[in-house]
């Protein structure tokens, strides 16, 4: 045990499997008492079960740690309050909130149903807000808190077929940036992880099939990093989360980290890469016709060019 989080109390949502499980185990190993929250559903959000959360609690206890399980859904405002209250009731406070809970329902946007959009946003975005909102009231009172959200390369870079998931994950990044500014002065930090790991959400039959087709077409080669997704373990993400939850990271706030196996990157914040300006008036269309291709649009690549 490193003891980096001795005496702290943590809530980890979606902690029954994959990345969330790795985070819960690592927080407990570092000395934190952990509420292991998992609604226990399949990756599309169906068929709840207590079993995954209970198994992780048993694992933590066997290793000498302290943990309790919770099976509430983050997507419900009141149930989320109950998750946070479980930490207070069982362990007396809440210092650390890690929001991993999420589901997937991939579809091209022109085929996406309203329910597929709402369900994915309800769990990821509303779920993250719900838990954060209830936890931050307590963290503000005690003038201490660590919140780590989960964003995704899908929203930051744009993955086709994930209008719901990419929107939700990008919205979590916006929520993280605003919350960091709302809460920083109360001794709370809010940061985000964009993870890349082999879990039941990424190593799907569809992914494996698409990868096989790409290999056959020569679009990806065997030695490319993408081809070794299996080597990126969900547990690899946890050490960065433990660090961000610790006193070593007191002034790390509003930041985004891309975590893939042993590779950890700090992501750039939005900034202007090229600017055109006129001092005293707006641009006209005639001017833009002439100037934009030589300036703002010069070198831009269409990520999905038209097929003639």
């Amino acid at each position, binding site marked *: 045990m*490193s003891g980096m989080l001795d005496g702290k109390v943590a809530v980890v949502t979606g902690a029954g499997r994959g990345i969330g499980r790795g985070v819960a185990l690592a927080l407990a190993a570092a000395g934190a008492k952990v509420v292991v929250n998992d609604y226990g559903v399949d990756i599309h959000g169906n068929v709840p079960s207590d079993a995954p959360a209970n198994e992780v609690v048993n694992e933590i206890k066997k290793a000498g740690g302290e943990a309790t399980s919770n099976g509430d859904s983050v997507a419900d*405002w009141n149930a989320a309050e109950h998750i946070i209250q479980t930490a207070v009731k069982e362990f007396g406070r809440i210092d650390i909130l890690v929001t991993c809970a999420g589901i997937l329902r991939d579809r*091209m946007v*022109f085929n996406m149903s*309203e329910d597929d959009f*709402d369900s994915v946003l309800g769990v990821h975005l509303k779920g993250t*807000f719900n838990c954060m*909102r209830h936890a931050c009231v307590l963290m503000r009172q005690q003038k201490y808190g660590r919140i780590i959200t989960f964003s995704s390369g899908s*929203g*930051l*870079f744009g993955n086709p*077929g*994930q*209008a719901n998931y*990419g*929107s*939700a994950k*990008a*919205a979590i*990044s*916006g*929520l993280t*940036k*605003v919350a*960091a*500014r*709302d809460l*920083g002065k109360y001794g709370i*930090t809010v940061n985000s992880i964009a993870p890349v790991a082999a879990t039941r959400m990424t190593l799907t039959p569809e992914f494996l099939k698409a990868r096989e087709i790409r290999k056959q077409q020569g679009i990806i080669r065997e030695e490319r990093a993408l081809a070794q997704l299996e080597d990126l373990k969900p547990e690899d993400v946890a050490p960065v989360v433990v*660090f961000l939850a*610790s006193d*070593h*990271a007191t002034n*790390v*706030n509003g*930041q*985004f980290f891309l975590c893939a*196996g*042993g*590779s*950890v990157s*700090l*992501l*750039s*914040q*939005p*900034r202007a890469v090229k600017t055109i300006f*006129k*001092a005293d*008036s*707006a*641009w006209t*269309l005639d001017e833009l016709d002439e100037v*934009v291709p030589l300036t*703002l*649009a010069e070198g*831009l690549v269409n990520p*999905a*060019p*038209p097929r003639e």
Partner: protein
Amino acid sequence: MGDRLKDRVAVVTGAGRGIGRGIALLLAHEGAAVVVNDLGGAVDGSGSSSTPADEVVTTIKNAGGRAIANADSVAEFGAAENIINTAVKEFGRIDILINVAGILRDRMIFNLSEDDWDAVVKVHLKGTFNCVRHASAHMRQQKFGRIVNFTSTSGLYGNSGQANYGAAKDGIAGLTRVVSRDLGKYGVTVNAIAPVAATRMTATVSDQARETRAKRGISAGAPASRMRMEPEDIAPMVVYLTTDGAKHINGQTFLVRGGVISLLNYPAPARTITKLGRWSADEIAAIFPSTFGMDLANPAPRQD
């Protein structure tokens, strides 16, 4: 009148006032037939009125353009379909979709109610999705389309007191990036604008809040007298993105303020640490100050 958009049909949501109104007028001026959509509610989303949309339609028609008003709410999946179908029924097709509709309910996150969260996310993010979803089915079939969404510096940089708005607007940025990849191969482009302009939405920031921020060195927008912030100034870049000249611009975000237009970056690794195998938290704590920590400043440091 120009003719860049002759025979094109456009839908502009939130087109009754401010930035949306300016876009609708310029699209019509370039020859597009425009569905002027506006629920006509207050800044916080309460109430409704068909007057703002009707007035813009009248302005367009008086100038010799083609337009029709629509007062459906973008926030409802079925109503959004009706907005898109209005273009198809009245003008035969839909080529251009501009998603401007939005509301504001600012609160610090620890005081933000569930209803304030839901209402803002529903109009901005769900509303943008709803319209994109219904329009994209038509655009894919006709193998042509131009979609411009509205994101915000609030989500890109993080504005205190706007957890709902900032999340919704960054969500729209994510939606834009995904959908540009879903639709690009069908001849559809999807881009986003982060506007800065003086409208009734920015007027909700109180003078007191501006003063407090200025004292702390936090920007709340410079005084209007010193910086050009006309809502009409946003329109030219939006309309440019709908023209044939912009057919290769896809999945990008532009910041527009007066005569200043910037292309924004995609997020990318700024610094990377790598090892074979898993880092430990202790190792990260040891290496952090001399690697990632070199670049970082806390945007809201603890006040003791």
